[in-house]
């Protein structure tokens, strides 16, 4: 890998200036490297992070047909990675005008990495530096412990998609503590509502009484107030104290739980395993936001490379070349989903909503189709709105909020169905639905979504670890259950149980052939038990 030459770097710096003028915000420093095919061979298994730890699976062709992106949320062929400074990779022989377009695209990504709040936990450190020290740690451990390091990596990676990404994020966004005492908060927010289940009048009365105490006794108001509470609910103090103890226990993802509570891992001779698990967990957390913002991120970058390129005076004469490449990138496929095209159209659509003042309650009240079309409050808030959305949304919010009927109709979108025509023995692709609701659901179903599995401490019997897969109308891939659970058993040191739901039967939808209906699915709850590397299954 070598850096791009001075001439090209100058072009890049020019792009940065123009992007800043349009309102994009990002750090000054960036690194651009030329990569050869050979470099890519080494980089792509390491998710483009040059300093990622070594692991034998990286040297083997990995079969990913099943659950490709669910297993590998990191993007193996990304051009730009979210490091400090941001690093981007280029082909050796790109012409200058193409580099201008790619630079704008890259700047779009960098701006997104550094401003979107779903990346908040990656802002305070440089991942390549972190990865390098992790890589050294693992290399050192491997020299001492040999192949057992790789087993621990393997078993930890087996559950690295269950990391508590949102819990990690929420720590950055805790609401500021209120000036009121915890005791008071607990009394009104929890005790009266969930424990005593007061009705509204009684609740309001109690607030009134509190306010009165404040008025009458000033600083001593709260104390006086609780004096009466103690008489009315003598158990309150005990309940409050108990709640304080409980609060100190944060939610823990499976990896964290194992590290804290596993007898096996906490033996003196096994403690090194926890550092390996930490590395795997940190790495997984780093990649989480990327896959959850794929449509937005690519849409945002495409929006800006298009906008900025067309305004760049340096590339006059290459408009046609650009148009050809750009169309390839951002055209909507007849069948299939292109995140560049979809995301970019959503941003244009959002900008239009903002400019016309359609992203408002007033507009929502308009029901008449003609009036909706003509609506224009000349708000001119388009740019402001898209910047706000790029800061606060993820793919789920983005689609759920914006892919409405107007958008779907405007862009002529539909859900494509595939069905078997038995007479002709062909798969037919057909227009299943043009309803926004269906389109949205199809998109949301296609988004990355790891299963929601947590430790249920109440059901831990003896030494057994009890995992619960919360039901979301999706079964787990069965053939992966055994080995994943075997890994957990190894790390836990005792038997492991997993409660999940499985499909009992699927009956094809009833009704006329022409009309598409969801099939009816019957579910059953089962428990997998992994004990001494043997898996058994029980229906409950």
């Amino acid at each position, binding site marked *: 890998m070598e850096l791009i030459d001075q001439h090209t770097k100058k072009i890049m710096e020019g792009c940065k200036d123009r992007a800043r003028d349009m309102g994009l915000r990002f750090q000054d420093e960036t690194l651009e490297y030329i990569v050869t095919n050979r470099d890519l061979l080494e980089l792509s298994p390491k998710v483009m992070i040059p300093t990622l730890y070594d692991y034998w699976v990286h040297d083997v062709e990995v079969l990913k047909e099943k659950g490709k992106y669910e297993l590998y949320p990191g993007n193996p*062929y990304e*051009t730009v990675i979210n490091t400090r400074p941001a690093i981007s990779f280029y082909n050796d022989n790109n012409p200058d005008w193409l580099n201008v377009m790619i630079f704008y695209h890259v700047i779009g990504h960098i701006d997104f990495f550094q401003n979107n709040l779903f990346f908040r936990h990656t802002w305070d450190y440089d991942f390549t530096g972190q990865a390098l020290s992790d890589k050294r740690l693992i290399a050192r451990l491997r020299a001492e412990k040999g192949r057992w390091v790789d087993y621990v990596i393997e078993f930890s990676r087996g559950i690295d998609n269950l990391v508590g990404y949102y819990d990690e994020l929420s720590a950055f966004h805790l609401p500021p503590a209120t000036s009121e005492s915890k005791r008071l908060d607990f009394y009104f927010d929890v005790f009266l509502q969930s424990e005593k289940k007061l009705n509204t009048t009684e609740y309001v009365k109690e607030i009134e009484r509190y306010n009165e105490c404040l008025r009458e006794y000033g600083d001593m108001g709260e104390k006086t107030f609780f004096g009466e509470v103690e008489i009315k609910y003598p158990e309150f103090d005990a309940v409050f104290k108990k709640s304080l103890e409980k609060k100190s226990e944060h939610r823990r993802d499976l990896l964290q739980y194992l590290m804290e509570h596993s007898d096996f891992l906490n033996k003196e001779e096994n403690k090194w395993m926890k550092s390996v698990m930490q590395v795997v967990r940190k790495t997984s957390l780093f990649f989480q936001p990327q896959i959850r913002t794929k449509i937005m991120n690519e849409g945002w970058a495409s929006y800006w490379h298009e906008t900025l390129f067309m305004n760049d005076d340096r590339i006059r004469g290459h408009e046609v070349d650009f148009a050809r490449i750009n169309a390839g990138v951002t055209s909507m496929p007849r069948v299939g989903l292109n995140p560049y095209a979809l995301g970019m159209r959503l941003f244009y659509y959002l900008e239009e909503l903002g400019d016309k003042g359609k992203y408002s309650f007033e507009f929502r009240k308009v029901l008449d189709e003609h009036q909706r079309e003509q609506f224009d409050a000349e708000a001119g808030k388009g740019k402001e709105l898209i910047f706000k959305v790029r800061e606060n949304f993820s793919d789920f919010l983005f689609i759920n909020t914006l892919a409405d009927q107007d958008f779907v109709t405007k862009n002529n979108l539909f859900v494509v169905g595939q069905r078997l025509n038995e007479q002709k023995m062909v798969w037919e*692709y057909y*227009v299943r639905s043009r309803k926004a609701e269906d389109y949205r659901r199809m998109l949301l179903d296609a988004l990355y979504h790891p299963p929601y599995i947590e430790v249920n401490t109440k059901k831990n019997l003896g030494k057994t670890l009890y995992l619960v897969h919360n039901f979301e109308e999706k079964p787990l891939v069965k053939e992966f259950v055994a080995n994943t659970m075997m890994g957990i058993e190894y790390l836990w040191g005792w038997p492991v149980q997993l409660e999940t739901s499985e499909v009992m039967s699927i009956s094809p939808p009833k009704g006329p052939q022409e009309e598409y209906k969801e099939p009816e699915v019957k579910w059953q709850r089962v428990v997998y038990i992994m004990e001494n590397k043997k898996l058994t299954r029980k229906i409950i």
Partner: protein
Amino acid sequence: MNPKRQQIYEALKAQGLSPEQEDKILAELHDSGDHDIPETPAENEVRLPLQVQNIYDYHDLSVLQSVPRPRISYDLCMRSIDDLLEQDKQREKDGFPRKIRVGRLIKPGKGGKDKVVVVPSTVEEKFIHDSIRPPEEGEGTGGSGEGEEGEVIGEEPVRPEGGAGAGPGQGEGGPHEMESSAYDLGKILTEKFELPNLKDKGKKRSLTRYTYDMTDKHRGFGQILDKKATMRRILETNITLGNVPDVSDIDPTKFLISPADKIYRILSREKDYESQAMVFFLRDYSGSMSGKPTELVVSQHVLIYSWLLYQYEKQVESRFILHDTDAKEVPDFYTYYNSKVAGGTKVASAFKLVNEIVNKENLIQDYNIYVFHGTDGDDWDTEGTEAVPEIKKMLTYTSRVGITIAEHGTGSGGSEVEKYLKKSGLLTEKPDLIRLDVMGKDADEPRLIEGIKKLIS
């Protein structure tokens, strides 16, 4: 239309056929294909992609900079494969299941320059969601453009059309290369199978791999000095030189010793073993075998063949037979592997040919005979009236008959071959001699290896 096929069809029709059976037969009857080995794969064949691209399949490097996905060079893989397998063995010793899968056939290259190669591969297992969908309805995806709701906007054949896909190997470079890559494949198949029911037959006692021993003698150099032989040689030389005046009183200290007189024992390969087993590969190449079933059957036979080549160091003789309504023997695995599918189906014809060959060449006396047959289970001889007696005859002398059925999955209650085999009771009567493996058309490599275990265990 083939008059002979027509004849068979009419004879069958006279005996009565269910409409379903008749459809199948007619489809094959009117098929005008031939069994040529494809020269090059059809290049003008255009098919819609079965897997529509997902949003996560798009990457900046490929989309913006048209950088192709880097391909791991397979030579590189071959070099590290021994280490990987070693590591995998260690895994088993450590009490964890093996993780490396090998024997995957992939065909890189374009414009017909395909080659059969082998790579080690693995899967990282995690808890992930599975999709549920009824078999007759595919997953939904996005689309854009014109079209009413319900309107069909594109079609894709379920089974690949025409002769394509029929010659699954399409190995360039001809038969020789085919052999050598199959040998490599056998080498890395982790599963070490053994031919079952091996009996002592013919001149030599056992069929084993080469052994190395210090049996050969060599003058001048070697591993161990054979003192007695050397002494004898020195004495001979000295007698010739006239250096031994009195044979009854020899003084060894006076001997002249030439370096060439030293006789050593040298490590040598024992190769005086004879072929003891003969394996017949039988493949149904009728019209109905088009697509996946053929692919599966030949893949499985490639695996068995590769394993035999390696494990028994080419000491096992293989014969190849293809059949539709008639059976014929082909000279090599290349032809066997690559011949296109066409024509009707009579399973019995192949078994009959095996019986004939065995009889004519008197193979029973000197060989353990194994027969592997691959089919999709369709047979014009729906009751097995011809096939079952031939199988029975075969079972009198074979060590094992392994029948693989790669089902289309269209019929219910199993295919015809499966039905009449079960009905004949041979499977339960002689489980040691005949085995049946039925797999769906979506079987993968591990399933194939599983099948081999079933067939020869």
